[in-house]
């Protein structure tokens, strides 16, 4: 067991594409759940729309890479409208039920063999990198240092990802200190009170769903950028992982989603490496493969502990208990 290697692998995830993808999705959830109180349990579907929207428009329709990103965004907006218009007039819990079901429906549509020529069904999609890599301004070589050393393509993905996170954070920060954000937070607290003050609650909720969905789709695009689109990634547990990251950092904070995603991935990688290592030297009484799934149990325990003991997250205001009221 090489502890230095394990640590290096773990901290490498501070700016890995997966971390950036989670951060974007978690920013989307912070808008929807943290600020507007919309319990969107289908963030995985938004990420799938971003990823498939990007890959399909590049592979099937020959779009340039940025066109693929736009398709992902437009797709997520349409998805938000389809989900939101019938459900946002209902009580909050119904949105959770509908989104979790819609996410499964969407995943199964991407998985079914009927659309194999477009979606690749169970094999997913790959080989859509030409346009994106052709636009890479970095010449061949390695970039970064230590654990964060990456190829030119890796550096390009990371640059785009970090830029997207920065822009998203800026938008969320600007909106949440504006009167628009104030209405949203009011809706989270009590939508009838806000309605009685003359605000079109439905419209604000739909705007929040759409905005958060766009961030989720961008997360999906970044998730797909470095490698491939695999339908097995966009399962319900992805939604729960993003929620874990969000709640860890703080649901109603600007930087919480980013901090939470970083901690989530660094810890995940650390545990994923150290637990099999411990098992192989006989410290843990289980096999290596069992040990590596142990981390998911630990994620579940961590989520419970956060919600019970620090529901406002690491960055959240101490007085502000977002999850429990």
């Amino acid at each position, binding site marked *: 067991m090489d502890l230095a290697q394990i640590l290096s692998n773990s901290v490498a995830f501070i700016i890995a594409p997966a971390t950036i993808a989670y951060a974007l999705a978690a920013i989307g959830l912070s808008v929807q759940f943290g600020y507007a109180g919309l319990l969107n349990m289908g963030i995985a579907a938004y990420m799938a729309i971003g990823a498939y929207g990007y890959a399909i428009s590049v592979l099937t329709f020959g779009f340039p890479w940025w066109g693929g990103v736009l398709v992902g965004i437009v797709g997520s907006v349409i998805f938000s409208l389809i989900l939101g218009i019938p459900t946002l007039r209902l009580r909050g819990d119904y949105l959770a039920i509908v989104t979790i079901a819609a996410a499964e429906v969407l995943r199964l549509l991407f998985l079914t063999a009927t659309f194999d020529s477009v979606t690749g069904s169970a094999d997913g999609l790959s080989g859509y990198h030409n346009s994106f890599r052709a636009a890479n301004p970095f010449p061949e070589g390695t970039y970064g240092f230590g654990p964060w050393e990456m190829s030119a393509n890796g550096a390009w993905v990371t640059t785009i990802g970090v830029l997207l996170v920065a822009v998203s954070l800026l*938008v969320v920060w*600007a*909106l949440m*200190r*504006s*009167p*628009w*954000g*104030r*209405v949203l*937070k*009011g809706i*989270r*607290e*009590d939508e*009838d*009170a*806000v*309605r*009685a*003050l*003359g*605000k*079109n*609650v439905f419209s604000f909720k739909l*705007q929040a769903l759409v*905005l958060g969905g766009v961030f989720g789709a961008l997360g999906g695009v970044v998730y797909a950028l470095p490698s491939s689109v695999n339908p097995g990634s966009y399962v319900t547990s992805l939604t729960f992982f993003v929620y874990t990251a969000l709640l860890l950092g703080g649901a*109603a904070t600007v930087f919480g989603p980013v901090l939470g995603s970083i901690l989530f991935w660094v810890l995940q990688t650390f545990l994923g490496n150290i637990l099999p290592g411990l098992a192989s030297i006989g410290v843990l009484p289980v096999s290596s493969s069992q040990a590596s799934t142990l981390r998911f149990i630990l994620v579940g325990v961590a989520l419970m502990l956060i919600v019970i003991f620090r529901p406002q997250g690491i960055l959240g205001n101490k*007085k*502000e208990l*977002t999850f429990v*009221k």
Partner: protein
Amino acid sequence: MSSEIPEPVPPVSPMPHAPRPKSVGLHKGEPAPGVAKVDPIIVADGITRTFGGLTAVNVEHLEIPRNAITALIGPNGAGKTTLFNLLTGFDKPDTGSWTFDGKSLSNVPAYRVARMGQVRTFQLTKALGLLTVLENMKLGAKGQTGENFFQGLFPALWRKQDKEIEQKALDLLVKFKLDAKKDDFAASLSGGQRKLLEMARALMSDPVLVMLDEPMAGVNPALTQSLLDKILDLKDEGMTVLFVEHDMHMVRHIADWVIVMAEGQVVAEGPPLEVMQNPAVIDAYLGAHQEIDLGELTGRYTPEGKN
């Protein structure tokens, strides 16, 4: 209270200034359920609302007088709050039509009703807990540029207006004695303070008609006095007030007009003192013992002060 009860403290004038006169001559003809008003702000016709087999509201005709304080009283389950919800667009009637300021309100959603100048408070206060008191107040202002998604992104477009709204909010908070609490979460306020906050927040929108659902429930006597003054101030400022209340002292004290509901119908209306003498109202709601101290009813207190 009967006169024999010894008063431990000399009666203090409840109001520091001269008592404000009640509005009279609001109606045309004899006061009766559905009587026409000289200058009605709300005119409702044939409003019914049923929940399953229960007819919660069945109002044939009702007019609310402008620039007066109207009390809506009646026993629990009489349909007062349902009528409130119907008038403010929070619920839809099965039949009927009603106008506010001459404009039809049928099928107008609640937020548009509020924008037209008809704001309400709730029986169970709805303070927005995780917003500060000041944010609660600022949310109440109408027509905010920064509430548009795209304009909200650029503070230059809304900062000036926001400053004005903040000043107005601070002035109102001083009036309602909540200015010391302005940076606290509304969740940290007591029940009575939340009532005050909700009322102050409603006033942020410069309403024409203020509808208060049990403004005094759960408020201590000293605060009641200042709330009463606030309500009378609203009328002086040209607003119309409609409130639901069970405290008969309050109704008598500030209402210019009283509407009594029972089993979904308006059973009586008129000036407060006359309505409270109405045998139908006493039967349906007030009971025969409204003037007698509770202690006398239960036998634990005698007028002579010995027990």
